[in-house]
């Protein structure tokens, strides 16, 4: 079957999922700014977008060899940064950093939405007859 929707649309979809996860993580961090011993979370999803690397198969001649695309199997996840402590109660949330992350993510999200809109309107333009 002919692919009606390009791979770019799927990639944008993944990117938007990741932006959503990052928004949730940042909101969670801000909500827990006063929670004792809470450590800031960080959303990781950029590795899921690198489709080119996932298609690149490594030639393994031994079972102990590593696969290049190994990290690509893992979906979006959040990691905890345990090294930092910004408050005396052991809390690790840097409010300025969280705010900057949120603003950054907002721009990223709206850029992705705009591109998604462009992809769909291109399809509709190509389909529309007279």
């Amino acid at each position, binding site marked *: 079957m002919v692919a009606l929707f*390009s791979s*770019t649309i799927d990639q*944008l979809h993944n990117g938007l999922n990741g932006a959503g996860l990052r928004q949730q993580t940042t909101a969670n961090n801000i909500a827990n700014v006063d929670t004792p011993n809470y450590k800031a979370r960080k959303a990781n999803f950029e590795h899921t977008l690198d489709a080119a690397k996932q298609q690149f198969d490594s030639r393994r001649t031994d079972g102990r060899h590593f696969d290049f695309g190994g990290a690509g199997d893992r979906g979006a996840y959040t990691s905890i940064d345990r090294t930092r402590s910004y408050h005396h109660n052991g809390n690790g949330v840097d409010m300025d950093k969280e705010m900057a992350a949120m603003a950054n993510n907002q721009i990223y999200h709206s850029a992705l939405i705009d591109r998604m809109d*462009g992809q769909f309107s*291109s399809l509709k*333009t190509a389909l529309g007859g*007279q």
Partner: protein
Amino acid sequence: MPMIQGPSHGELPLSPLSPQAPQSPTESGQNEQMRTGETRNNFGDMLKEALQGVQNYQDASREKTEQLLTGEVDNLHDVFIASEKAGVALQATVEVRDKVTDAYDRVMRMTL
């Protein structure tokens, strides 16, 4: 980046109107055939080049979008300029397509 090759007025391979009548029917027929073939070839090439130009814009736009996704892009406006160019090129192509099909319809409806 290649531009879309529009039909420039100076380069259209139309043969000029000749005031004198053709000398012999066989010669004129041969000439006509050759000329039509040549025109078709040139027009086909022109169309192919134009479509390739549109495709190049689309490829550039897709590349920029992938860079935006992975955070490699340093200027956001590059992404949107590339995508707008691709969108306008696609729209122009669709307009031409519609005009061509419209012309075909008109010819088919023509009463002889």
